[in-house]
């Protein structure tokens, strides 16, 4: 379904998002480097999967990309336009084209509003259609995400997690976006419902020609849905490749370790296969190790790894890795 013409929809150049930590007098003491110099592209129509352990900056990258957070450095280019510095009314059209689905379907919907009010909120900014027209569109959206028209006047707390997530998707689709940031949309759901939501997202992508950035930590689900996958570690992308290529030939030691952590359903196979367990914890993003960020935990680390930061280079066509060893 992707890459008919390889047109780049969204691109970042050395994107940074640092959260300052201030001391008692309001002076900047330190910074949490959640996103620290990321350069990558998302191609129109594809699903770009973003994986990495908790706290590595996946969600922050996504939210900075759509300008929900203010970037502290670098560039964001959407459909050929540099949107890094746009503000207010100039930025708003881009927020219509880039929408978001949240991880937690409970805090994503206002408990005091009913479904109609929730979905109408973003729509009201872009149309001056009459109320009955908007209502009609809302019914259509609800049907599209597999809900009934008479759910319209119910409140968010009357629905299950999966249904709430559908409402969230309907709200995002209400303004007819081109790009959808799926910020771990399934990790708060039951396994049985995860599949339904993922399949629905795939159907919607085909029907509406959407481009997804799919943030997740469920590796097998990401493989299923993604065209290409980026692996993040401590604010940097360490490897980008086509989905199957990444799973079959991981190059970065961190990716290897992540993939070997996927549970295997066959106990015989599980016992015989060597798991690559990485030692230690994720270093603090306030105090990023010098050189390669992974050298403190890497089983293959060499002296040069702590000296120089490896650049992200294309090793085989379409497969980018940032590692000195491979």
């Amino acid at each position: 379904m992707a890459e008919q013409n390889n047109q780049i929809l969204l691109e970042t150049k050395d994107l940074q998002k640092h959260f300052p930590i201030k001391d008692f007098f309001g002076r900047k003491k330190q910074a949490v480097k959640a996103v620290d110099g990321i350069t990558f592209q998302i191609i129109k129509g594809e699903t770009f999967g973003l994986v990495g352990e908790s706290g590595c900056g996946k969600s922050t990258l996504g939210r900075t990309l759509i300008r929900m957070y203010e970037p502290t450095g670098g560039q964001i280019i959407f459909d050929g336009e540099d949107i890094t510095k746009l503000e207010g009314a100039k930025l708003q059209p881009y927020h219509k084209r880039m929408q978001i689905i949240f991880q937690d379907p409970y805090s994503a919907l206002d408990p005091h509003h009913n479904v109609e009010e929730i979905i109408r909120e973003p729509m009201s900014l872009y149309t001056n259609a009459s109320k009955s027209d908007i209502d009609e569109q809302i019914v259509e959206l609800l049907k599209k995400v597999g809900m009934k028209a008479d759910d319209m006047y119910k409140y968010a707390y009357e629905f299950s997690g999966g249904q709430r997530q559908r409402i969230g998707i309907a709200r995002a689709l209400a303004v007819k976006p081109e790009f959808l940031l799926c910020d771990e949309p399934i990790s708060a759901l039951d396994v049985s419902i995860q599949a339904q939501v993922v399949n629905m997202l795939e159907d919607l992508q085909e029907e509406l020609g959407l481009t997804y950035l799919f943030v997740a930590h469920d590796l097998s689900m990401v493989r299923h849905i993604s065209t290409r996958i980026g692996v993040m570690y401590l604010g940097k992308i360490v490897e980008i490749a086509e989905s199957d290529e990444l799973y079959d030939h991981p190059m970065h030691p961190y990716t290897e370790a992540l993939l070997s952590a996927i549970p295997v359903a066959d106990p015989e196979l599980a016992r015989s296969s060597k798991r690559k367990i990485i030692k230690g914890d994720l270093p603090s993003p306030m105090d990023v190790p010098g050189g390669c960020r992974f050298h403190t935990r890497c089983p293959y680390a060499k002296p040069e790894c702590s000296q120089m930061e490896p650049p992200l280079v294309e090793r085989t066509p379409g497969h980018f890795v940032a590692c000195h060893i491979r």
Partner: protein
Amino acid sequence: MIVMAKNKSDQKRRIENVLSALKHDKLAIASLVFLVIIIALALLAPILPLDPNTTDVRNMFQPPSPEHWFGTDDIGRDYLSRVIYGGRVSLLVGFLAMITCVCVGVLVGTVSGYCGGWIDSILMRIVDIMSSIPWMVLVTVISLFLKRGLKSIIIVIGFFTWMEIARLVRAETLSLKEREYVMYAKFVGIPGYVIILKHIIPSVLPTIIIAASTGIANAIMTESSLSFLGLGIQQPMSSWGSLLQNAQSYMQNAIYMAILPGLLIVLTIFAFNKLGNLLRIFVEPRVMSGEKD
């Protein structure tokens, strides 16, 4: 309250909670009945056969009797009428001062919490400064500058007691601001004041209502203290506080003149605090289950 519990079954459960709390708490029932009577009397005073202003010098300092239920005062006015009219003023001051103080508190709290940055710093420092001055001194000084009377006492109480509410509301706004539905509204470009009105205030409403019910009690108390010091309501209008002040000169021959309004002040404040408790059970069903555990 109806806004918060739009859903029918939810509302029913909340009412059941309140009813079961009432069942265990006889004092709360008594408080509610007392409040209803006091408020009804205050509202109906003009159409009741009461005359608080006719003097009758032949019947001064009459102790309570079938003719004058609460006796008469120093110039022979019917004390029951004066107490009821006094209650009218006290309650009016209580409600209006509470409304003023809630409005200012909610405005400052939401704006401060939502905007953050230097706006937050400036507003909160103003709150700090105002709450660091003992309010009695502040209110006394301010009321010396204003023309004494009903309006100025409402303004004085309303504008100098909102700091507590502002702090409570700001704290809740700070946590609500990080909810994803608020972040989303901000993201798509909903203006800040709409977000405050549509998303923040409905969620802070429980806190506001509870603060308001104790706010009335505090305002009545403050009004009584000010009137007792002679800084509040002026003759011939009377409030419970000014009745008390007037009564202190006649403590020896007419002690009922002090006891009656004093008792009413105490009971009303107690009843409003009880009401606040019941409202809390209504808006926060967790309070109830927490007590049972």
